């Protein structure tokens, strides 16, 4: 019971946190680009867009910050034995993320917000780029940590201490999973930010044109729509490419995850594995082999049997043979044997299959939306305001957010039953000293607080979107007696 609740709590708090993260990563850079364009060209449109999207960025950023603190504490609170087992390896990226990324991000963002009238143009521009760099560095460390859970490289088992220990720090940052997962995640963040910017700007373009707003305003919204849409499309293509590379990698390191994602229930002849559109509806024999770059794809029942007889095995696609796991998986095998009979090595196939497809489908739809925006504003065309545009403006930013969530649910659910792939079962990572009561209690309160905050956040975003571009922005350096250019 406690394990179910603790997993739900992690799922709820993490998925919720991740509604804000990709927008923060992507939008920090897009806002920095807009401000750079202003600094280079002196065109006021870019400054007004910087202020407009900067304000939306900050409303979103605040939520990311406060929900992020829960994440770092949650490992120790709900997953103490996981923390104890992996702390020697997993703790360092978290500590470094805080030291290197979070200080940079928060300090320079503070200077950016309050520094418009106190810093020179160039220094002020540098602050937003440094804050954006902070969000990037943060993503490197946290994805490296997650990639290690998917593929625990650079580690050994210390039998005396009963825990995993670091043997090679560089292996963490050259983890093949990390090398594909990080670009994939970053590309998806830009899909999210691009879709958000394009949708907001296009909606405002249509609305303001109808209201007869000045030409300058319309030109600015048009610029932002075009910029956002191109970012969305290019990032979308990058997401597909990196996703493909990641899939090819997962066949080796997490064969059960990919077998579940493709619902492989039987062994197909070499090179004849079909693609399933719906569960059991086989199409195009061999397509799956082509997609994953391997002739042999093990079936779920096969992997199950193999686990019970030989323990956890990675799969060598070149040789078409199971290969021995990495050092940690090998060294921990004897320990795992003690409880192997109770471990079901397969993830939930239904969840994996559908989350995988929804991630791809919804993500693709978002990219199509980007193309639609470009067509809608082609040449000097002005899209018409109305129910369709409103609907588009609401749906478009949500699509990438949903695709991100589906992707992460697939990544984490597909890793089950492991918290450290092939080593520690999720159940063994729980805090033994925490009863079901406190987990229930905290989960209910988190859910309520998060729900209320979501309503407030969305309302504020809508309010500030509707206010639109500020008419005139004054960013000259002020003397002491004048009002701040920004104040809480």
């Amino acid at each position, binding site marked *: 019971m406690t394990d179910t609740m603790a997993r739900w709590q992690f799922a709820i708090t993490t998925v919720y946190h991740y509604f804000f993260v990709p927008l923060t990563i992507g939008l920090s850079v897009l806002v920095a680009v807009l401000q750079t364009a202003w600094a280079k060209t002196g065109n006021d449109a870019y400054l007004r867009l910087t202020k407009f999207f*900067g304000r939306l960025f900050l409303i979103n950023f605040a939520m990311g910050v406060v929900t992020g603190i829960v994440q770092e504490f949650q490992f120790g609170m709900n997953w103490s034995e996981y923390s104890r087992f992996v702390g020697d390896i997993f703790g360092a990226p978290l500590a470094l993320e805080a030291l290197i990324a979070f200080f940079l991000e928060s300090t320079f963002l503070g200077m950016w917000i309050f520094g418009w009238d106190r810093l020179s143009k160039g220094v002020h521009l540098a602050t937003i780029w440094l804050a954006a760099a902070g969000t990037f560095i943060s993503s490197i460390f946290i994805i490296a940590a997650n990639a290690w859970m998917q593929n625990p490289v650079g580690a050994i088992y210390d039998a005396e201490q009963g825990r995993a220990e670091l043997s090679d720090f560089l292996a963490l940052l050259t983890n093949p999973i990390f090398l594909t997962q990080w670009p994939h995640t970053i590309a998806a963040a830009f899909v999210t930010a691009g879709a958000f910017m394009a949708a907001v700007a296009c909606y405002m373009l249509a609305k303001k044109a109808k209201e007869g707003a000045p030409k300058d305003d319309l030109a600015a919204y048009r610029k932002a729509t075009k910029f956002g849409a191109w970012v969305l499309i290019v990032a979308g293509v990058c997401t597909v490419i990196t996703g493909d590379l990641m899939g090819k990698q997962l066949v080796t390191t997490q064969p059960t995850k990919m077998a579940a994602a493709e619902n492989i229930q039987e062994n197909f002849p070499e090179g004849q594995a079909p693609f399933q559109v719906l569960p059991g509806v086989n199409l195009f024999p061999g397509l799956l082999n082509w997609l994953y770059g391997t002739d042999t794809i093990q079936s779920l029942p096969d992997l199950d049997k193999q686990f019970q007889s030989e323990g956890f095995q990675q799969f060598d696609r070149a040789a078409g043979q199971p290969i021995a796991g990495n050092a940690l998986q090998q060294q921990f095998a004897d320990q795992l044997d003690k409880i192997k009979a109770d471990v079901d090595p397969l993830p939930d196939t239904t969840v994996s299959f559908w989350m995988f497809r929804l991630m791809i489908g919804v993500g693709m739809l978002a990219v199509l939306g980007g193309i639609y925006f470009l067509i809608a504003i082609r040449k000097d065309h002005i899209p018409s305001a109305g129910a369709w545009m409103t609907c588009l403006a609401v749906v478009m930013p949500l699509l990438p957010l949903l695709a991100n969530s589906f992707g992460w649910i697939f990544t984490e659910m597909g890793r089950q039953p492991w918290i450290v792939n092939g080593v520690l079962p999720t159940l063994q990572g729980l805090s033994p000293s925490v009863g079901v009561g406190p987990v229930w209690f905290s989960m209910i309160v988190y859910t309520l607080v998060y729900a209320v905050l979501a309503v407030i956040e969305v309302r504020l975003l809508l309010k500030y979107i509707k206010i639109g571009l500020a008419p005139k922005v004054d960013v000259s350096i002020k003397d002491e007696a004048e009002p701040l250019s920004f104040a809480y």
Partner: protein
Amino acid sequence: MTILDIAVPAASPSFLQILWLILVAVLWIGFFFLEGFDFGVGMLVPFLGKTDQDRRLVINTIGPHWDGNEVWLLTAGGAMFAAFPGWYATLFSGLYLPLFLVLLGLIVRGIAIEYRSKREDATWRNAWDWALAVGSFLPALVFGVGFANFLKGLPVGPHTTVFGNTVTLYTGTFWGLFMPFCLIGGLLFVALFLTHGAFFVSLKTTGPIHDRASTVGGNLALVTGVLAIALVIWGNIAYKLPGQVGWLMVAAWITGILAIVSVGFAWFMNSRGRDGWAFVGTAVATVTLIVMFFCHFYPSLGFDNSRNTGISLDLTTASSSSLTLTIMSWVALFLVPVVLAYTAWSYFFVFRRRLSTKNIPALDVTTAS
């Protein structure tokens, strides 16, 4: 290098283990020094500010800094996780509900600061101001109760995992954390941070708010002084954890007394109208008080192993491998100075000047960027 030669009952801590205990202490000190006044300012907002302009002025003294201040907590937590997984795992799972209260407070106060001025509605702003006060009070109280409990020693005992390994877990209860001594700890942290916050406001503002903050801070300093005397004397006399080192106990007395003296110094300087020195006083009091606590945490990390039949959870058994500690030491060596440099630049150069209500823009949400 005498620190390396000190013999303790179990295994001797290594240089790296001692270094990381010191670094964890430094991170907590940084957190309480910075977020301490931050918490204080948050708690004082509804009381110092009569009008909306006043309240905005008070909040904006910490405006550019609050988020960066909070990162010290994340870094302290991360450093405990990375350098002492056993400490992090046992402590965070053992103190589940208290930490949950801290998180709840931090969520609410962060959002309160960011969102309160985003609407003009007076009810909205008043509600967020109180959320900010409560959200600042909760963590301050819980951390105070927590640190007093560590000084007493958190009871721990053995637990055998399915793999046959013995791990150490907290064996106390939630209500067991609220012993009188620990409540004094909680009240002391609240009072100290209120004083620290009031002196920060008086240092950063001019006009009526400055005068009000100075008066309130002076009164609060007296309360803080009494609580500090009680905690320092009670804590240093009554509680002793195994393995403690004689000269560190002397150091605990000295830093504890320094903390009390610093509060008095802050009160005195404030009454003379020396805002800067008053703030330095509460800052030194905060730093020395946390140093006193950490003197007690060597080498037990604040765990009471007296009823633990398994392996004692302490500095040597809770720590990471020397490879991990070595890598992190190099990173810290190069990057901590960088962080300190740009944080200092932000406080002392970019946002140096005092604020008054003249600096608070009119009630127009469209200008709030």
